[in-house]
Every structure is written in C-alpha cells, then in structure tokens.
C-alpha cells in the first residue's frame, strides 16, 4: 500500500540523467533545492492552491446550512434533497466534468444558459469553472459531515437550553456552534484535499489555465522532471497535517 508513496519519495531524490525520471541513476537533492525550476510549475501550484482554498470555503458556506437542515428538521421533499446530495458522489466524475464543459460552452451562445448565467462566469473556461466544479463535488462531503454532527444528544441539549430560558442566538452559540464546528472544519479540509487531488474535473473545466495535475499530465509527453515527485511529497505532507489537525479538532471540540 505504501509502495507508491515510497517510490515517490525515493524518486524525488534522484538525478536520472535523462528527461524522464523513471530510472534510478544518481542520488541527488537537486530537485528539492530547486523545486520550482520547471517552467510554469510555480504558476500551476499557485493556481491549484487558490482553487482549493476558494472551493472549500464556498462548499462550507453553501453546505453547512443544508447539512444542518437535513439533520435537524423534517420537511417536505427531504428525501429528494437527500438524494440530491448523494448523487454527485455516485455520478462518474467524467460525466460531471463533461456536463459542466458543455454548459460552459453553451452559456456563451445559447438560451437558456446565456440568459440565466452571468456573462463571463463560465466562459471562457478557467479558474472560475474549476472552482465551481470542485465546490459542487465538495458540497456533498460538507453536507454529509455537518449532518453527521446533528445527533439526538445535541437535540436533547438544545431542548434543555430552551427550557432553561436560552434565547435562539444563545442556543446557537452554546449548543450548535460547538456541535457543528468539527464537522464544518473536517468537511472543509476534505474538500481542500479533494480539490488538490482531483484530476478529472480539472481536466474538463480548466480550459487553457495551468493547474498542477493537468499541467503535469501534459508535461508527461515531453519530460518527467523529479520536481513533480517533490510536489507530490509536499502535497502529501500538507494533506497529512490537514487531516491530522481535522481529526484532533474533531475529538477535542466534539460533544461526545
């Protein structure tokens, strides 16, 4: 299971002597000393990080109230709303990506998309479309994470607080905020990690914008510099810290 990770670490410390870093040749820390020494790599990383931050914030803002409502209330159409959050997880990413691509292209010329969507939002393709794609996929993860924090115990606590005379804002601050907070943060971090990791949606929605995974995919035809592995190791480290932080936070602030 860890073999590919070990390969990635070992090959980031390699000077293959050729343009393709597939064969171990000479141990070298060169790629680590000059991690951005490949044209466009810096831009690709910056774009990917920007997209990941915005997409996860967007997913959290949109998903938190939805997850809370799904867990807290009974309402007409609840099972439909439930399915709507489940579907993006079960749809092949390639179909989702293809859909966004066709709508983007159509939004430039045809009704109803041209009239409904603000001009320039989806076309030409670029970072905005990638953010939209990643936030759409990530939304479901936030909703599920937040919804999972709404349990019977919290409802009982809410009841108790109300009986003791707490007004709505106080109930929200003292009961719901601490209960939901870990779900919100872990959902957000998950979206961040998914966005950095995602290839398929990015491939379909980035257009000519340079994003790390699609840029590296295109690069593979010409060369594979060890810097790609260096970035892989760095992403691994960042995601590792993020997930550990999310887990620790979940335990400390959790109701249970």
């Amino acid at each position, binding site marked *: 299971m860890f073999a590919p990770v070990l390969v990635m670490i070992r090959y980031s410390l390699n000077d293959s002597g050729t343009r393709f870093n597939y064969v171990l040749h000479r141990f070298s820390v060169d790629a680590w000393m000059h991690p951005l020494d490949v044209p466009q790599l810096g831009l690709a990383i910056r774009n990917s990080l920007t997209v990941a931050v915005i997409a996860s914030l967007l997913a959290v803002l949109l998903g938190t109230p939805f997850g809370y409502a799904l867990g807290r209330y009974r309402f007409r159409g609840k099972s439909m709303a439930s399915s709507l959050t489940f579907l993006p997880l079960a749809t092949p990413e390639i179909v989702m990506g293809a859909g966004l691509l066709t709508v983007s*292209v159509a939004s430039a010329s045809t009704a109803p998309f041209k009239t409904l969507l603000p001009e320039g939002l989806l076309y030409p393709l670029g970072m905005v479309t990638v953010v939209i794609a990643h936030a*759409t996929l990530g939304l479901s993860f936030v909703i599920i994470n937040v919804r999972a924090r709404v349990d019977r115990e919290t409802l009982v606590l809410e009841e108790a607080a109300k009986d003791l005379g707490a007004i709505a804002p106080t109930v929200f601050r003292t009961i719901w905020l601490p209960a939901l907070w870990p779900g919100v943060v872990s959902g957000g971090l998950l979206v961040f990690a998914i966005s950095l990791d995602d290839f*398929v949606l990015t491939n379909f929605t980035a257009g000519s914008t340079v994003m790390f995974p699609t840029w590296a995919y295109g690069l593979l035809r010409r060369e594979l510099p060890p810097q790609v592995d260096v970035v892989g190791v760095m992403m691994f480290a960042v995601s590792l810290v993020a997930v550990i932080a999310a887990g620790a936070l979940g335990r400390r602030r959790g109701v249970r």
Partner: protein
Amino acid sequence: MAPAAIWLVVFFLAPLVQVVRLSFSADEFGLTAKGWSLGSYTAALGAFLPNLANSLTIGLLATTVAFLVGVPLAYGISFYGGRRRALLLFLAVAPFLTSYLVRVISWQTLLGASGPVLGPLKSLGLVGDRFVVMGTSFSVVAGLSYQLIPFVILPSYAAFQRVDRDLCAAAADLYSGRWGARGAVLGSVLGLAVGMLAVYTLSGRRLDLSPTAALALLAFAMVGALVAASVTESFLHVVLPLSVPGLTAAGVLTFIPALGDYVNAALLGNVRTQMLGNVIQTKFLTELDYAGAAALSSLLLAITLAILGLYLHRLRGTAVLDLV
C-alpha cells in the same frame, strides 16, 4: 439551505441534462444542441463497443481486487485494532493523500521495465529481458484497483463498526466452528469465478486456455477454498448479514468511479486497454465531437443510474446518507 439546492440544480443537474440533450443533437460536431437525432448513439455504439467492454471488465476486476484488499483490512482494523483503530485506519488511507496523478506516475515507475520490481528480477535472470508489465491490461488493473482501495476501506470500516459486539460474542459462543467443507466448495467456486474474470480481462477479453491460465485458475480456486473453509460461522451468520448494506454501498461507490476512470488506462495501458472514459475525454477535449462524446457520457450515466436504481430499490426504507 436554498442556496445549496439551487447550486446543485444549476451546476450539477442542469449540466447532466445538457449532456443528455446534446447526445440527441442532429448537428454533428456542433458544440450546442440542434434538432433531434439518434445518429450519435448508432455511431458511438458501432465504433466503441470494445471500449465499453473494457470499462466493464477492467472496472469489475479492479473493484474485485480492491475489495479483496480493502475489506479484510477494514475488518481487521475494526475488530482487532483495539485502541489504535483510528490511527490504523488513518495509516491505511494515508497513501491516498497525495496527488492522484503523482500516484499513477509512481505506478508507472513501479511497474516500469527497469523499475524497482522488474529491474532486480531481470538482473537476477528470473524474468526475460523483454518481459514487460507496463502498458498491459495487468498494469491498468493494478493501478486502478490501488486508486479504489480507500473507496472500499472507508464505507466497509463504517459498516463493521456498526456491528454490535455483544452479538458477536454471543455468536462466537453459539456457533464456534469453522465453515469447513461447505465453505471449501463455495470458496473454490467463488475463487474460480474471480480467476476467470481475471484471466478474461487480463488476456484482452478472450477466454485464454493456455497451461499458465489453467494453473492460475486452479490456484485461485484453491485459495478461495482455503479462505472460505477457515471463515468462522459466527462471522458468516452475524457480522456479514449485518454489514451487507455498508458493503453494498462500498461496491456501488467503488464500481462507479472505476467505470468512468481514464487516467490509469491512458498512462498505464495500451491502445487495446482504452476505456470508455478515454474515448469521451479525447472526443470532448481533442476532437471536439461534442455530440458523440455526449452520447457515450449519457450511456455511462445510464449505466450508473441503473446501478444506483437497483441499489436504492434493494435498500428501500434505509436512508441513503446513513451509509456513506
């Protein structure tokens, strides 16, 4: 909650509808839909049936392999992990925290002709100089099943966690035996089935009957028999029935991304292992044949919805989100 619902309708449902609409477009090579026709479907089905078959066979085999690795791992962590369960689960999914593409590249290196596995084997003379793994259906299945492992581990771990431990203890007292002979028979049949799927997929969708293949089938059947015979009856009668909903969810959530994957086939496979996703990607992004690509995407979507429909029908009363 309204903004999120509107968001999902605009950026998730509407795009799917647009793809389906485009697939019936009469305007070949048009970027938007005009008129109605079934032309894209007849053209697509005529030319790309082998790719669809690749998606189904490679996807199914990769899902099976991911299950064979992921389910025992999840079971072990859930039942024998003790206090370190959370840490062990984290370690099991940690390798998947790096970039998807970099993971695929690592598999290219790992399986390469002079990579860390084949290189030493070749210098020892254990395999011939012209032996390759990269660029075969084997490497596609290996890479894809690796990527799918977390989709198996997480839901099946959640399912195993939900199994009441008191019931398990009671069951262990009541049925303390192993499955034995009956298990061996069923296990060998299952092992044979998996082996046939493997041989069929890896030899490029022919039923290969060479001595090597026959030997491999025998090995699959024997391993299946051994494993099934040693399964305890308490696992069979208590743990398994209680975790079936979660395991089914894992199967659905693993097979669907496997069907649509194209990165593994593009980077680890050859011309004959290209999946439906590869054709869709090329048509959309290189050939700009939107109608043709939309027809194939709609086909993929229809298969997905059929699987989901079947799954939800079986699930009936249970809330879907509880199992994710």
